[in-house]
């Protein structure tokens, strides 16, 4: 060990710093949480169910997506599958946290990883790249987002029902607005054009010809397969 490269630690100070540094972002996410709670109420979820989903799943896009697919009878398998597919990006994101979480006790690292979401992941990676060596930061950052996400979802569910006709307030557009905004932020330039076109076309065709939420899987797969194929020079093994 050299002074330039101190070992990874996990301290209470790091945890508090991660929590505090993430507060502004968590407050912004709370608006999204309110929207989720409101939508959950529209789909008949109880207050307990709304909170339980936020506490245990803790993935805004998956939760909104689940509500978009909510139906009677409930397509449980489709909802779980869609939640999994839309979050496959976490595989790469948590892999990138290895410098911090790798050296920790397994229990601590596998508890910390539960709190991975886009926002706190981004804040933590920035801290890590700036030379941060305290892995407590990541858990603190995650707890900030998690607590705001849970409370705002409950608040949206409890008080959103007092609002009149959702269509008159444009609230039927919430889910679409969230994903359009997320897509806009995810756009990385011209190289995304081909995969996105493929995803859009495949999804529209899928929605037209296939039952349920299969269009989502078809569109997502079509876009990423074509993108990966193009990026690796048309060979499957990337040689």
């Amino acid at each position, binding site marked *: 060990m050299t002074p330039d490269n101190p070992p990874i630690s996990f301290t209470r100070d790091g945890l508090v710093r991660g929590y505090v540094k993430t507060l502004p972002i968590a407050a912004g996410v709370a608006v999204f949480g309110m929207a989720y709670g409101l939508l959950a109420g529209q789909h008949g979820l109880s207050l307990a169910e709304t909170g339980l989903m936020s506490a245990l799943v803790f993935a805004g896009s998956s939760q909104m997506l689940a509500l978009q697919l909510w139906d009677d009878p409930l397509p449980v398998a489709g909802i779980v599958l869609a*939640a999994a597919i839309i979050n496959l990006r976490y595989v790469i994101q948590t892999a990138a946290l290895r410098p911090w979480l790798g050296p920790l006790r397994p229990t601590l690292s596998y508890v910390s990883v539960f709190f991975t979401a886009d926002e706190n992941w981004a804040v933590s990676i920035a801290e890590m790249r700036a030379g941060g060596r305290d892995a407590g930061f990541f858990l603190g950052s995650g707890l900030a987002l998690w607590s705001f996400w849970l409370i705002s979802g409950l608040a949206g569910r409890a008080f959103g029902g007092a609002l009149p006709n959702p269509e008159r307030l444009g609230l039927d557009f919430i889910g*679409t607005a969230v994903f359009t905004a997320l897509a806009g932020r995810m756009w990385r330039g011209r190289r995304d054009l081909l995969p996105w076109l493929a995803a859009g076309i495949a999804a529209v065709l899928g929605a037209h010809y296939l039952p349920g939420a299969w269009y989502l899987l078809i569109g997502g797969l079509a876009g990423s397969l074509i993108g990966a194929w193009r990026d690796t020079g048309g060979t499957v093994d990337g040689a």
Partner: protein
Amino acid sequence: MALDLSLHAPTLAAILGMALAVYLIRAAGLFLARRVTPSPWVEAFLAHLPGAMFVALVVPTVTAGGPLYIGAAAATLVSARLQAPLALSMAVGIGTLLVLRTVI
């Protein structure tokens, strides 16, 4: 408004299933990072996945929603490209839809 603390079996199953699936994915990245390096193809595939999923989710709804939805989605997209926070982008989209509904 009374506190609705009821739990329904299918809803509970969906919540627990989602929670398990999403946790396993989060844990898998950490687990795998300690053992294997993904091939360039897998890495490229995973990098394209979120964007493609969001497009697949939005496009059928927007095209089915007609000119009002297309206009509102375009406004949302522009605000997101201008680095607006998520909450603001949502407000822009919903606001645009309301304006269009009033005007058209």
